[in-house]
């Protein structure tokens, strides 16, 4: 079970968190202006890398804040956590 460092509450068990999928997939500014294909890309397409992946988590059973984490999908190690709106940090 992952130990996830909530930016506010510190490390807590994964069971307290809710997974939110890939980070930095912004809701389009004007969905109405998008083609079907562009909208489908927003709606249905996500990356699935082996290695570092920026993803969203919510500390659902704790402070209830959303945040982003860079997790290595191969080792499950979390290299960084940061708040929504912040750029993805450079991780090693």
């Amino acid at each position: 079970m992952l130990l996830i460092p909530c930016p506010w509450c510190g490390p807590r068990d994964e069971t307290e968190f809710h997974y939110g999928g890939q980070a930095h997939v912004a809701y389009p500014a004007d969905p109405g202006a998008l083609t079907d294909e562009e909208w489908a890309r927003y709606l249905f397409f996500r990356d699935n890398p082996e290695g570092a992946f920026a993803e969203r988590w919510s500390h659902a059973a704790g402070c209830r804040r959303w945040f982003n984490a860079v997790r290595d999908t191969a080792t499950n190690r979390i290299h960084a956590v940061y708040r929504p709106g912040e750029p993805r940090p450079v991780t090693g």
Partner: protein
Amino acid sequence: MTRAAAGGRIDRSRVLRFRFDGRDLTGHPGDTLASALLAAGVRRVATSVRFGRPRGIFSAGPEEPNAIVQIEEPFPEPMLTATTVELYDGLVARGLSGRGRLADRPDPARYDAVHAHCDVLVVGAGPAGLSAARAAAADGARVIVADEQPEPGGVLLGLPGGVPPGSLAPPGAVPSGSLGLSGALPLVSGESAGPPGAEWAAATAAELSRLPEVRVLPRTTVVGHYDGNHLVAVERRTAHLGAAAPAWMARERVWRIRARRVVLATGAHERPIAFAGNDLPGVMLAGAARTYANRYAVLPGRRAVVFTTDDAAYAAALDLAGAGVRILAVADARPGPNGRWRERVREHGIEVLAGGVVAEARGTGEVTSVVTGDGREFEADLLLVSGGWNPVVHLFCQVGGTVRFDDGLQAFVPDTPPPAVEVAGAARGLTSLHDCLADGAAAGTRAAEALGGGGSRAGTGRPGTGRDRQAGGGSPERRGGVRRAADGAPQANGHALWLVPADDCSTHFVDLQRDVTVADIRRATGAGLRSVEHVKRHTTAGTAHDQGKTSGTLVPAIVAGELGVHVREVGVTSFRPPYTPVSFAALAGRDRGALHDPVRVTPMHGWHVERGAVFENAGQWKRPRYYPREGEDMAAAVLRECRAVRGGAGAMDVSTLGKIEVRGPDAAGFLDRLYTNLMGTLRPGSIRYGVMCRADGMVFDDGTVIRLAEDRFLATTTTGNAAAVLDWMEEWLQTEWPSLRVYCTSVTEQWATVALAGPAARDVLSGLAPRLAADAADFPFMTWRDTEVAGMPARVCRISFSGELAYEINVGAWHGPALWSAVLDTGRVTPYGTEAMHVLRAEKGYPIIGQDTDGTVTPADLGMEWMISKKKADFVGRRSLTRADTVRRDRRHLVGLLPEDPGLLIPEGTQLVEHERLPAPPVRSLGHVTSSYLGAGLGRTFALALVSGGRDRIGDRIFAVLDGGQAPVAVASPVLYDPEGARRDG
């Protein structure tokens, strides 16, 4: 009897009675079932699963592949290893062939779980583990030591000494004895320079237990090692007490441990060698035989041959010889056996066959003779085997550690450790007691140092992250591998012998429990399998209890031999939890019966129970489904409740609906972005029905929105989605629209809510709330008022889910029971449950999200185009509603269905088709029935259904596919009752 008159760690002053395979036998405290059986002379314990061959006791620990038993009394438990069952009075067991038997009655024992946190978790209380724990704890760190045995010591318990349990050595004294794994000359019986190992272990564990921050857990097997150093262990607390187990005490306890650092001191398993008949009772791992002789004072045979590839078996041979077993010969497969060992056994008159092997164990039912490679046949009832040692890397690999093949040891040893994990002692490939003690201490010290200068500052208390986590397990040169001893002598002395070749390898077993032989492996590789994972799945070798404990290295090595490659190229199969079998009862813990899942109840629950309500589960909520009266079945009760609402007044406890206060200057704009319709134009004092979609345009939830003030709304949700809607709102606010000044607060349980519905509802309400102007003009549909009801501050909303004149009365939850009683005490109101509510709403065509929808339904599919605002620039899901797929004319629409037989109730889920007679498959489904009831208002049965192009089929005759034929139904509008809404608006 084969029990020695003295020695061993058993308590001869007490006799335990037990029964095995129908025979009444005895043993002593300190025995396992296996040692007691051996002591009683029982050789055949089980029968093999595929070939029905007799099997005996092969090992002395959890690696046992043969002696699989069924416990019958005091409570049935299947497939335990006799070598790990502590003997107790009244035990009844039998040997198994394959599967065991699950109990057919509920287990009366308690099971529980506990969360634990520590700075250092040490797995294993053998010499390395205890040394590690002592070093780690020296600076005040929070340490947990978990060990599978009833007493600490691990391999030390099997060394000579014969010290009775409970005797303590002075703390700090260094134990003597040989692990029997070493190339160095061991100390054997009577040659102890220090306190015997078991005595030292007991003293060290006692010393540790006295430290306030240290917890020593005996009888506790760590079965899983997961990310972030989360480890799961199972503690067996009362099984060894048999019927005397106290009822208050959990029989087993699951420990969920979060450790900042872990020291794996998990030891090593001795490995068998594949030769003909290597499964017969009487063939035993050499180290196990040594343990039986020293720890249990049991002689597993009278006349023995030893077959070894290393020095370990020599110590076993000497101990057994000392105990009275006649050792006929040592067949040492190495061309040049260790000279010092050779001399020692020769002093005892034991012949050493250099470069010798055992070709076959012979006998019917058990070993009666042993044939060596040179053709000599020894009359023997015991054959000790040592094919080398496999470090126990199960936990290490589960959490992501990698292994490499060590040529010195001829086994896979830890290589790259996962973060914050140390491996110490035999688990790392070390073979001498002295080295294991030193290695454990070093690992413990490193673990404590990595915590940042000692663990006494447990104020951090939390498992490490960041730098601490990245630190890895020690310096590179220490990672894994077999060290050289201080004197430079190679410590490992493994010799690569995996099987003794023969034409017929059909009794050369590599996995005794699964009856897998070298012949099976050859068939697998002959069929073209190259991966050891594929061979495992094809042959089942290494599955079940074994998990590579005795078959590890052996199977890959034989596969490698067949493929003509080195074993390192074949590698090992994946190690997955659990290390040893875990009972389902332990995993369930106290989450069973009434505590299986939370039962959520409303403030009025006690009343519902008292009045005999029949409940249904709505998520975790218990909701009254109906309130049967004397002699009523469900249909009768629901019909009565429906008629009461249609003809008079009914009351329903709707406190479970989700309620969210949305407050802030941007609250209206926020809701406009989430609901499909406009909320910003709602006036304070008014209420509007709303629907929410996910971004894919599919309906997610619905409910009413109450505008309390310019900057304040109360949104209600369905019972099941209350948490999900709040999460949805928070997600958008926090991640996409942080600039919106809006706060959302759940008030679901702040309020108790009673729905009061029916033509008489206004009268009843007026009587309870004399200060409320309740006339239709003063209090119109879709408005709300704050007032007092029955003397309680209340908010009354005029909304309807039944199609009748109706109100929802909200009071503080503490007043819920009082409000409910006040409403019913008017004597004019019938309580109704969720089933009547479903019928009433369905007659009106109101969908239930999650029943009439399934995540593939748009608002338009529900006939709610009118709910989709044309005025708003956007709302979540809007763009999806113009995708090609969502504008198809043949999408499934929510429609009503009227069976031609007005008494026919079509089951929910029934498929709908066009044809009266089913054509040959495939048959196109038009859709399915989502809700189906007997309608009180309609006076007949009816249904709601999702039907392809349904709104264009209104009036059509289609067919419901039922058992026994198709039933004709007419497609209708979903609004079947009072379509003008006159009753609701009255």
